[in-house]
């Protein structure tokens, strides 16, 4: 059940992110870009090999409590920081476009071909 809900949420979030990217509003496109990352991180979390009752700490392991999967957490940790870097790059590009062309409507940005 919970897997189904996770998959559903990942699919919906991803679809919304893609939709935002396809629209004209560049600020919303940037937000959509960030939503894509969130969906991917959710997927990483859900793809962990096992779920536990405690954080993956050594003391929990020694106490015999089932812990959550540390590997996916490390992956997400890395992914979050990198996605934040790319997100700020996107924001920088939107910022520049808004000042070069005085618009945040991607249909007004027509000179990129040249």
């Amino acid at each position, binding site marked *: 059940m919970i897997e189904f809900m996770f*998959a559903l949420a990942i699919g919906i979030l991803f*679809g919304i992110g893609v939709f935002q990217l396809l629209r004209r509003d560049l600020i919303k496109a940037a937000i959509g870009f960030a939503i894509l990352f969130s969906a991917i991180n959710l997927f990483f979390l859900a793809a962990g*090999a096992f779920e536990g009752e405690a954080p993956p700490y050594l003391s929990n392991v020694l106490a015999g409590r089932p812990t959550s999967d540390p590997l996916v957490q490390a992956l997400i940790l*890395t992914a979050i920081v990198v996605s934040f870097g790319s997100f700020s790059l996107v924001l*920088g590009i939107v910022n520049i476009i808004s000042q*070069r062309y*005085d618009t*945040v409507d991607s249909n007004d940005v027509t000179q990129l071909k040249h």
Partner: protein
Amino acid sequence: MSLAIITAAPFCLALLLALPQTRAQLSKSAQTLLSAGLMAALFAWLVGSFPMVQAERVVIQQLDWVPALGISLSFYLDGLSLLFGLIITGIGALIFFFAGYYFDDAAEYNRFMVWLAGFAGAMLALVLSGNLLMLFIAWELTSVTSFLLIGFKGRKESAAREGAFKALFVTSGGALALIIGLVMLGAAAGQIASPEASGGFVADLDVILQLDTLHEHAWFPLFAILILLGCFTKSAQFPFHFWLPGAMSAPTPASAYLHSATMVKAGIYLVARLSPAMYKNALWTDSLLSIGLLTMLVGAVFAVKQSDLKGLLAYATVSKLGAIMALLGLPGQAGIKAALVGIIAHALYKSALFMVAGTIDHAAHTRQISRLGGLRAELPALFWVTVVSALSMAGLPFFMGFVAKETLLDAMLHYSAPSTGLVMLATLLSAALAALAAYMLIGDVFMGRRPQDLRIHKPPAPIYYGPALLAVCSLAMGFLLDSLVIPLLRLAVPKSFSLPLFAGFNEVFWMSAGVLAAGALLYRVRKPLIRRITFPLSGDSLFREFIAYIDWAGSALLNFQSGYVRYYLVWILGSVSLMLVVSGIFSTVTAGQTLLPQDLSVTATDLAKIFMLLLAIVAAVLTVVLREHVKAAIAYGVIGYAIGVIFLINHAPDVALVQLLVETMATVLVIIMLGQIRPAARLKVIHNLWDGRHSYNFGFLRDLGISIVIGLAVFVFSLIALQNRPERRSISEWHLENAALVDSEDAVGAIVADFRGTDTLLEIAVFTTAALGVLTLLARGRIGSKQFMPGKAPAGLNGEANENIQDATSLSTPFTRLVAHFVLPVAILIGIAQIFYGSSGPGDGFTAGVTIGLAVSLWYVVLGYDEARRQLPWFRPEHFVRLGLVIGIVNALFPLLLGQGFMGHVQFDKALGIYDLVSSFGLHITSALVFELAIAITVMGGLGIIIEAIAYPLSRVAADEGLSTVGSGE
């Protein structure tokens, strides 16, 4: 070893010449002596290695390169390599010397010599290489360096650019065929050499040349044709010959070296090199013979038609290369002796003639044969050099060229096949035309009357030394056959042979004499005859049409590029979703899977997760439907927090902490950025999107459709992945059990900072790069922006202020200032605690960096850019980034000193004997701790760069722009 040094020496020379110090300290003549002296020394060394080759037949030296792939730097010296090596270094020395006087400008000379020396190194590597892959790399290096040499004058002359492009296009196009052919050859050789281990790859020449069944292999036709394509393009064989005359736009020393003695002989070298393993298959020999003869004839005819001196020499070279190819294609390796003698003779006279052409160009500033004449009186030394070299080219008795022609005719005469008559006819005709070309060189350029408008300035005397020495060799070599040429050839020619200077008055002699006479006869009637020669089709025009087609296809493709970036994405994602739907992948993937949940029971924590997922979805929908950007940004923040809470519920406290901090940071960034965009621009897009008459038009439905298909695909794929994930069989278990090895309580921290530390190191480098990208974009990109120029603010701005973000000054109340001042030290303390106790609890280097970065960004929001910069003078993000990365890398390299691997685990506390002391505080001073510190500093610096760049006040932009226009005076 020594062969490696020989090969490396010219490259070292190129590097040395490229140094600015060399250019400044050494005069042109010193550089000339140095370069020519080095080549002469290499020549002498190769001569000295003669007894060694004589004793061992083949000298092989190897250095490991990529031992795991079986690739080694392998050097191979036998008679054939030695012959080519002597030509490359010997002619090279003379040409390097010549170049010193050909160029008047020292800087130009230096630039030229860097590439020429690089080329010499590549060429030496090619002929000394004992490994097919290394040979190929050298092959490509000669293409690249020759491109640079041909296009040397490309800045001024379009012909040079065109010639260089043509040469590169043809030769590297052929090289593509060659590499495929060589790889297939290596694979075939591997199958033959070790049949039991199929799939092996053999690139070593010594193994390949020992195989005697290669020509029976099933792939032989394919790789033989591919290799021959590479050789034919390189050695300018018909129909690829046209690049060579185009390459004459190179400075003459390059033409003399590359296009007479060395590069064009690379194809011949490879054919001769592989012949022992290939010649038994008729496909190999027949292709060589037919293409070679055709090239020989076509080149000879074209040569006499040229008006440019170098063009004539180029086509004569094409013809001679064809003759050599044809000789290599004679059955049973019957022509190899004649081919090698031809190579020696041609290298001697053609390099000399090219240098003559260069000297004439230098002295008379023209190479047009019609504008030259009567140079004998002005340049007597050059005249005699030309006479000797041209007569050698024509094949007058007792010159080296005579020996070459005698052996050529002799070899062709012994070719017994139905087509012998045709072969002889072609050979005799092109020999007669070669004689005609030689007579034209002497007669049209040096004899007769000097045109009125031809002014000669005398070149410096040393310019003659090289060509004169070569002319002497052309003359003397014939008399030194027994002592010099024959011993060398004995090492390269498999059968026993005789090579007399004069074989008596046999039929070959009479043919040879007849050719000379025919040439003289043709010289009398050349002018009306040459005018008659026309060709409906030239390789050059075919090439141009080919390029035109490529251009046409390119511009046709360009029509798909609308310039609206958004539609590119529509095309890409639209095609993806179309493919997803059409390919039926959904039914393939879902076959045998249950998609709908069977077990509907949920626990309390599941319920909490589902609630948070729903919250995230609702917030995501809100980011779409909320019109105003600020509200959408806040809704986006809600998604981030909801996901953070999910992480927390899933027992991932580290991730939850980072997620919450980063999402806060991201939302703050969006809001800072919104303040930088003119409200009218934002309102306009809102208006366009929502208030238009066609807000639910085709485009909307199309985007919706694409998103639904892609969302559906992601849903299905992740559901299947999640339902089928491996349970309890991943490396996670190992990580959990071994976290104690690295003194870490937190398995996640252990993975990030230790087990997978290299990933993390790369990741902070990526993050830094992104931050620098933002800085570059915003610092440089803003210059030249149109907005916010004085007097350009559009009217009607005031009425739209309802959505304006409050600017910095209005946020700066005494209370917010107090908060900002209070938060920063707390954040720093929290950060330090997170670094030191990262191994035993939530938080680590990332969170520390983001926490401090967040506190600093609060200063920027509250106090504004200027005030924040003034009050936080120590906050220098670029220094932090540098420091963090340096610490990270040093920390990663340090274990290497201790004999551990890159990023190995070092326990500093144990090494220092303070383990018990610090562990009583719950601390572990290890390399992981240092690494966390590096991460924290780097992330903090990267964030700082991003914040500073994005918060940079717009009012400054106009001022910067003024400055930059003043600053850049171009």
